[in-house]
């Protein structure tokens, strides 16, 4: 049989239907399709795909197991390098990572590595293997992890498996970081995937202290000097929303994407009034930005009942930083992309509500420091879009709460914690950091990779300290 050049299609909810519900959009392969897709892999002796994966999952290794239908073994192979495969299979930007390098992509489409990873992980979640608690040594050292996003979770898991008693301190009332409050249910199911992974960690013996803002209830020094933690891993993410600093940004109806998504995902405002937190979705919504956060906000608006949703992005289609699949999904659902357009003012009515967004057209100039062509405004090209809601999704910076109460832990001029790339070591002895708080807003898998490396380094540090 000739080798199939194209990926097997992912079954999805019909765009017209899914635009009005919060159920998962991509439904996942069935067993037969998973085996067929796995069979497209050439099991290359020098697999190029692996070098595209930030945590070096043994891709041909796990796919080989899937070819024979041995999904239980496949997941074991994946889990050696990736603690949250059900998450990564869904949200990794595969087209820039593993799949980008797959040889099958040269003449046709790459192997659907992410989809296969998701299948194996979902198979594993459904099989309800009991996680066995770790038996800790009587003198096991304690490690504190600050923040329960992917970086914190992966560090905690790795440390627990190495025999450390881990407590995760989380500011919110739910663990998971962006996985819980940011990425919507229709892309990453909360109960079925995220909470199951977190419960498994707890079954290992990891303690999670919710409602605990480090920098307020405890400082890092207090954790070390008074609470008996031998080391601390700081993984507080990039949670501080940026605004555009244009007139009208404080009008009612202007949200940061963080607030909009938090109300919807964490507080479940889409089930108001059963859940008490309100949200004002609006009828006509403009989302400013072009990344995953912007796509999520736009598609959430649609699901909350908006009739018309625009993405307003200042560069062109090619530069959109969102995952390819999200852009395609957004378009299929009817999101209107206004590209090479930048807002200059939010205009309100007499009672302080948003009425329209004033924008200016842009063109691409010379490449800037990031190598991308810089957008420059076209003079006298201003125009208005009538909207009642504006959602700002132009990026997030580091939250300063931990840094400002830990003066001997150095930060760079953007406020990110300075940490060694391969160990997560900060300038403060015993304190490590990783994920978005170090790199700035990045990806789930990079944050997890950083958590794992830091766990290894913490293990070494504590062993040295003992001797």
């Amino acid at each position: 049989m000739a080798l199939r050049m194209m990926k097997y299609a992912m079954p999805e909810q019909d765009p017209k239907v899914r635009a009005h519900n919060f159920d998962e959009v991509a439904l996942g392969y069935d067993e037969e399709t998973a085996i067929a897709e796995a069979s497209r892999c050439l099991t290359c002796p020098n697999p190029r795909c692996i070098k595209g994966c930030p945590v070096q999952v043994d891709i041909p290794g796990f796919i080989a197991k899937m070819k024979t239908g041995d999904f239980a073994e496949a997941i074991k192979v994946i889990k050696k390098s990736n603690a949250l495969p059900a998450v990564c299979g869904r949200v990794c930007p595969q087209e820039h990572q593993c799949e980008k390098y797959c040889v099958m992509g040269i003449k046709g489409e790459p192997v659907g590595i992410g989809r296969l990873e998701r299948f194996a992980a979902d198979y594993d979640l459904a099989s309800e293997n009991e996680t066995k608690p770790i038996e800790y040594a009587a003198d096991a050292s304690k490690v504190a992890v600050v923040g329960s996003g992917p970086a914190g979770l992966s560090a905690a898991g790795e440390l627990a498996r190495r025999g450390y008693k881990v407590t995760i301190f989380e500011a919110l009332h739910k663990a998971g970081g962006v996985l819980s409050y940011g990425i919507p249910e229709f892309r990453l199911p909360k109960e079925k995937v995220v909470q199951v992974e977190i419960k498994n960690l707890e079954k290992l013996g990891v303690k999670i202290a919710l409602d605990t803002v480090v920098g307020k209830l405890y400082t890092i020094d207090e954790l070390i000097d008074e609470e008996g933690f031998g080391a601390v891993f700081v993984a507080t993410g990039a949670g501080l929303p940026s605004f555009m600093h244009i007139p009208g940004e404080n009008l009612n109806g202007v949200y940061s994407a963080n607030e909009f998504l938090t109300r919807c995902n964490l507080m479940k405002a889409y089930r108001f009034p059963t859940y008490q937190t309100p949200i004002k979705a609006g009828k006509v919504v403009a989302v400013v930005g072009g990344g995953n956060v912007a796509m999520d906000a736009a598609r959430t608006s649609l699901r909350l009942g908006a009739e018309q949703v625009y993405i307003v992005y200042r560069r062109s289609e090619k530069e959109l930083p969102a995952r390819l699949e999200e852009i395609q999904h957004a378009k299929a659902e009817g999101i209107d992309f206004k590209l090479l357009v930048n807002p200059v003012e939010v205009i309100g009515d007499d009672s302080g509500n948003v009425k329209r967004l004033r924008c200016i057209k842009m063109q691409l100039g010379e490449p800037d420091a990031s190598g991308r062509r810089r957008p420059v405004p076209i003079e006298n090209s201003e125009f208005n879009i009538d909207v009642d809601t504006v959602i700002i999704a132009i990026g997030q910076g580091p939250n300063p709460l931990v840094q400002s109460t830990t003066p001997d832990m150095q930060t760079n001029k953007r406020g990110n914690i300075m940490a060694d790339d391969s160990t997560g070591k900060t300038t403060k002895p015993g304190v490590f950091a990783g994920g978005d708080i170090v790199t700035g807003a990045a990806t789930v898998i990079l944050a997890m990779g950083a958590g794992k490396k830091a766990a290894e380094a913490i293990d070494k540090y504590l062993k040295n300290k003992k001797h």
Partner: protein
Amino acid sequence: MYKILKKVLLSPSVWLYDIEAPRIAKKAEPGQFLIVRTDEEGERIPLTIADFDRQKGYVSIVFQEIGAGTELLGKLNEGDYILDVVAPLGRKTHIEPGMGTVVCIGGGIGVAPIYPIARGMHQAGNKVISIMGAKNKDILILEKEMRAVSDEVLITTDDGSCGIKGFVTTALQQIIDRSEKIDEVIAIGPVVMMRSVVEATRPYKIKTVVSLNPIMVDGTGMCGGCRVQVGDEIKFACVDGPEFDGHLVDFKGLMSRQRMYKDAEKEETNHVCKLSKIKGAI
């Protein structure tokens, strides 16, 4: 889970709760607030830490039932547990010895959050003149407590049923007019009250601190929902505040943003009333 140790009705629909929370009590400072969530479906409700006892390990809140969230909170009893309490949030009040004469103004339920500040100012050796305002004498709260930590207390009521007839600004003007040197004014209460206080002190260039209460979600600087215009900067009240220089605050913007969910919340309150009726019937 946080146990309610004591529940006291201070005035109609205004409750005081002492909540068991030793760690929070250890770290809390005047001016800071906490966030509670009553149950899985509940909102995150920001409330000022009205008092704390480090030895006994509890913090107090004083809140008014004004909507669905605070009504559900008000239904809890002594011995019940609150699902989530996050604290201490926000910056503490600037208190130090040698600040001089400080006028602490609490309007309505704002007396509760002004109390630990007045106490802190007093303990630091400053002269504390307190002004307590209420609609009428029946809803005046914490008078005894305020008297214990103030050098002088002035009470105002809208209807004259107690103290000076008028608003807190009437009393403030009296203090200004008797040429008492005022080094700082701290005002907490309804936004309109804080705005009037700020306008009253502006001509005299008296430093005036106000504690803002915009709508909040996380309380940690993550959502930006609590943003207020202060001078030419956007500030997040939950981490940069809640106290700000009143002469720089854009009160109009603050009031407008507080009204954002008014319609939705009316609906919700009806919904909760119906629900509790059904629950009550069973």
